[in-house]
């Protein structure tokens, strides 16, 4: 009796589109094996159809209680949601400010030699590093002077 009550609850959940896969499997197995009450004869046929993978033209479902199309809608919604999230992730990755590794810390540097300007940072990087190195030495001396002057 308890078994029937439990099955009745599962049927209600199924028709409401709230059953889990395990619960649905439980229903299919129960309807396939148990002595089904006469009033559930149509349901037996319906669950057999679901259990068989919903083949076309095998059963007349017109009189059986209709299961809401929630599962299919859920799947399509899930697909749309996944695609949306993927699109957002791609957009964020593309638009996000470049991380430290992709920033050239010497960007904007240039050299003018005999009136010719060179601003390809990759080509002049070693020169720029030398300039900054000499500037660091001057800065260290300047710091000593500032300390001496108590500023």
């Amino acid at each position, binding site marked *: 009796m308890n078994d029937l009550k439990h099955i009745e609850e599962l049927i209600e959940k199924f028709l409401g589109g709230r059953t889990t896969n395990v619960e649905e499997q439980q229903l299919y197995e129960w309807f396939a094996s148990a002595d089904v009450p006469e009033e559930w004869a149509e349901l037996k046929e319906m669950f057999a159809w679901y259990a068989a993978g919903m083949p076309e033209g095998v059963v007349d479902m017109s009189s059986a209680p209709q299961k809401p199309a929630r599962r299919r809608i859920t799947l399509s919604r899930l697909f749309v949601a996944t695609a949306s999230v993927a699109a957002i992730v791609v957009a964020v990755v593309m638009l996000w*400010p*470049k*991380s*430290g*590794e992709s*920033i*050239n*810390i*010497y*960007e*904007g*540097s*240039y*050299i*003018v*030699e*005999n*009136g010719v300007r060179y601003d390809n940072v990759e080509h002049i990087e070693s*020169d*720029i590093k030398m*300039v*900054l190195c*000499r*500037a660091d030495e*001057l*800065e260290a*001396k*300047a710091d000593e*002077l*500032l300390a001496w*002057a108590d*500023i």
Partner: protein
Amino acid sequence: MKKLLIIVALLVAGITQSSAQQKIDELLSRDISGNRYGITYRSAVKRDPQTGEIIKRVQEFSAIDNKALVKEFIEAFKAERDNADVWEYDENGSLYTVTAIWTKPKRIYNLSVGGSMITVYAQTIYREE
């Protein structure tokens, strides 16, 4: 009246600060703009690797066999003697150097003349590393 005097004093201080190094900067920009032989100008920028923000900007200017230019730079550096927070002059044999320093933001200007070569460094440190 007191407020007015304070405002005027602040304005004068602002003007003085903004005109500091102006003559040297003018010489630097003037001499790189033309097609001048014997002059090398390097403008180095160092950025924060995380944000891309400029931490330091350094100008290195060098020229050879240009006595007129040497004279102009020496005069420009001498003119900053009273404006700079620290100003140091050194003459050692044929090497003549002047260093002028300003704080907030930290600016270090250095002139070095030796033989027929003149080198000028002008660096601004926007943020300590």
